[in-house]
């Protein structure tokens, strides 16, 4: 009996068709702009939040979010539902974030004198002082705003990949396998990235843990 080869599942049988956002995207492919408008409304804040924590700048975050929608809209004619819509959109966001980071890094190389720290680039000058002040006096009471700055600073100190992994897991509640698909990495790599990120965060935030508890 000749060996039977199982045919690869077609895009239409891929299982992602049950995703309502995939359905919206398929409608967009057919020229339904209202469907796309719904997708924009669903993802605008989610993307802006991720980009905001990547860039520490609300305006840039919105610009990047808009860029993601532009790319998706332009690619709509060739859209094939080969992944969950959220995975696909955050993959595009990931690529954009990487490109944007490279662009910013290049600009900083030109603008900043060598050796100047950029770790606090996202914080206002007053915020930087605040964070440093809090670090010097870890036993004093800190309010929620201060804690926010401290956590933000801790997040900023993570590598780009670690930060995105943390944000996707924390804000989007993505599973390791979804994050792996989004970032085009393996699940063990994501597990390792998250573990290292959590370790760094723990080191940065442990001194403030008790104060954070009191603040809540």
């Amino acid at each position, binding site marked *: 009996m000749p060996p039977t080869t199982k045919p690869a599942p077609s895009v239409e049988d891929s299982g992602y068709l049950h995703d309502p956002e995939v359905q919206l995207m398929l409608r967009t492919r057919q020229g339904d*702009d209202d469907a*796309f*408008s719904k997708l*924009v*409304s669903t993802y*605008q*804040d989610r*993307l*802006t*939040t991720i*980009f*905001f*924590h990547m860039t520490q700048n*609300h305006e840039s*975050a*919105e610009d990047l*979010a*808009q860029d993601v*929608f*532009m790319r998706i*809209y*332009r690619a709509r004619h060739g859209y094939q539902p080969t992944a969950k819509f959220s995975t696909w959109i955050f993959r595009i966001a990931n690529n954009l974030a990487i490109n944007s980071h490279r662009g910013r890094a290049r600009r900083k190389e030109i603008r900043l004198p060598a050796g100047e720290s950029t770790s606090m680039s996202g914080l206002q000058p007053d915020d930087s002082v605040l964070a440093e002040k809090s670090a010097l006096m870890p036993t004093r009471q800190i309010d*929620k705003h201060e*804690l*926010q700055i401290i*956590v*933000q600073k801790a*997040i900023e100190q993570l590598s780009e990949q670690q930060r995105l992994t*943390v944000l996707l*897991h*924390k*804000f989007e509640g993505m*599973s*390791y396998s979804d994050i792996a698909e989004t970032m085009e990495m393996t699940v063990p790599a994501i*597990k*390792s990235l*998250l*573990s290292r990120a*959590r*370790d760094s*965060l*723990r080191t940065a*935030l*442990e001194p*403030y*843990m008790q104060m*954070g*508890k009191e603040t809540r």
Partner: protein
Amino acid sequence: MEKTVRLNADQREDLVAYLDGELPDDQVRQIDTIVSRSEVARHEVEVLARTWEMLDVLPSAKASNDFASRTMTNLKALEAPYVFANQWWYAPLKRTISIAAWLAALLICGWIGFEVAKNRIPNPHEELLQDLPLIENLDSYQEARELDFIIQLKQNGLFDDAQGK
């Protein structure tokens, strides 16, 4: 497991995955055992969980109220066919091209007119110009009176100097 034994890197990695509910059942049971027996592991789990909770203070960023409408407008503009007539440079360019076209048409008409006039209208001076060598030597020809004599003079090269001039 001893109460104070520190965890290795693999176990720490597993602890994070354990907290995230990303470990397979058999590994979850292993971690459960470790955590129940080791005070260090319990502390690790607690601190890691607490660190994760601290991220709750991070604010969610909200897109501007007009984000969706702005995005859709930009998308429409992106998709709209490129209409030359709507571009700022279209009107002045059109005017310049129109003036240039009229000038070119005028020049072409002028040239055609010149050519026609040159070829079709007879030039009264042309015959005179053709006969100029004869007119210039008319006195000499009249003095000679006979054509044979003139032909003989020409053969002797008498007129060569006069023609050369």
